[in-house]
């Protein structure tokens, strides 16, 4: 089930939305529909789907960021703001965190959560498209995108846009589902994704289709090595990645030259 295809090479006007081929201009709207539907229960579902392990994946990503006080961090597809809240503490009052998401519903949930956690003052929320980031060149110290890149229509364009706004020496961290390194784990993971996950989506969020899309979009996302090449093609140097939980998730790191 894992084929790691990129946008349809035979038809440049279409792209994938899960396993479906859709016109490129429609993907954004369809992805927005999925996240509008799951926004209110996104964190609960993440905890249920990953048995809480997503917190460990994010914690390691945070360590890799090596963010220091006074720096500017952009968290793209930041959703409900869990990473942004932690970055806010790391950069301190002299630093700046931008929580960005294309989806208005997710951003609203994120903004409310951050306020509830008391994380404010150095956090700004911005609704924007990862393919055309509305920030000046060489202005950000660190960019993170956690479980968001696979939903972007043109991933190469998004990576180039991130490279443009990063300061030289700044780093990009892409945390995303990837390809398991072990066949047994891959089969178990497929069973879980296509049988159990949609059922959980139906029971908890009353939305089986959205969670089926999540499983399908993971299989369509580039594997570890392909994403590494894409980052290098976008201009990043010293790129590498760490597999986590047997490759179910990988965090890629790239530095702007």
């Amino acid at each position, binding site marked *: 089930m894992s084929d790691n295809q990129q946008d349809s090479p035979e038809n440049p006007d279409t792209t994938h939305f899960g396993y479906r081929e859709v016109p490129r201009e429609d993907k954004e709207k369809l992805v927005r529909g999925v996240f509008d539907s799951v926004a209110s229960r996104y964190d609960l579902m993440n905890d249920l789907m990953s048995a809480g392990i997503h917190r460990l994946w994010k*914690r*390691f990503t945070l360590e890799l960021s090596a963010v220091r006080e006074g720096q500017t961090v952009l968290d793209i597809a930041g959703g409900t703001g869990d990473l942004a809240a932690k970055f806010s503490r790391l950069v301190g009052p002299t630093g700046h965190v931008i929580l960005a998401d294309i989806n208005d519903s997710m951003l609203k949930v994120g903004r409310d959560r951050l306020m509830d956690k008391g994380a404010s003052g150095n956090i700004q929320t911005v609704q924007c498209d990862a393919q055309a980031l509305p920030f000046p060149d060489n202005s950000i110290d660190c960019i993170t995108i956690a479980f968001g890149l696979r939903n972007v229509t043109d991933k190469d364009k998004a990576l180039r846009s991130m490279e443009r706004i990063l300061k030289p020496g700044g780093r990009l961290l892409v945390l995303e589902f990837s390809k398991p390194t072990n066949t047994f784990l891959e089969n178990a993971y497929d069973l879980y994704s296509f049988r159990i996950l949609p059922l959980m989506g139906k029971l908890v969020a009353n939305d089986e289709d959205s969670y089926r899309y999540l499983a399908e979009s993971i299989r369509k996302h580039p594997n*570890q090595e392909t994403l590494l090449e894409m980052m290098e093609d976008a201009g990043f140097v010293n790129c590498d990645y760490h*597999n986590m*939980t047997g490759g179910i998730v990988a965090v890629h790191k790239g530095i702007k030259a």
Partner: protein
Amino acid sequence: MSGDHDPAVITAVLTAVETTINKGLSLAPVAQRELGDLAGTVIGIECTSPEVAITAIVESSGELHLTHYSERAMDTKVRGSLEDFIGLATAEDPAAALINGGLELVGNTAPLIAVQQIITTMDLDWEAPLVDTLGDVVGHQLAVMLRGLFRWGKASAGSFRRQLSEFILEEGRLTPPAAELDAFYEQIDQLGLRVDRLQSRLQKLVRRVGELKP
């Protein structure tokens, strides 16, 4: 690209250890304040077996933050096996354990000893959380009982350890006294050094004989 160990597994272990230590520190205000005075201290811990590296960072809040990956400059770096680290963590005299143990040290040892002592000797105040949960009267009574129980447990454990050691050493004569053992190890070390010196002299002689041959 990916290391030998799954970062998620190591992060899970570190999170559990960190949470336990910080939970303990939250019940020991004096230890937390003392640790807060060491804010910014970064200690690198490199375990050779199993092979894993972690960094302990002391926060200004008096909490300890453990990370699998860190780019911060370290005040102290310690390297050794898991056994060596357990020995250090449980040592009554950490300075002696550092010098005599198998640990390799780089940097300033003072912060490492200070952190070890604060954590291993912290005096937990069980009363505050018990009073918060059960109310003033019941909470206080239970805390007094628990304190007595811990004191008794600590004294009993110390007494048992002392008596067991006396029995093994004096009554059963199962092991030699520590001083006798130390002297024996010292003699073995000296013998090893003499053998090395003798071997060097022999090699030197063999080389000279070889040079004298036409």
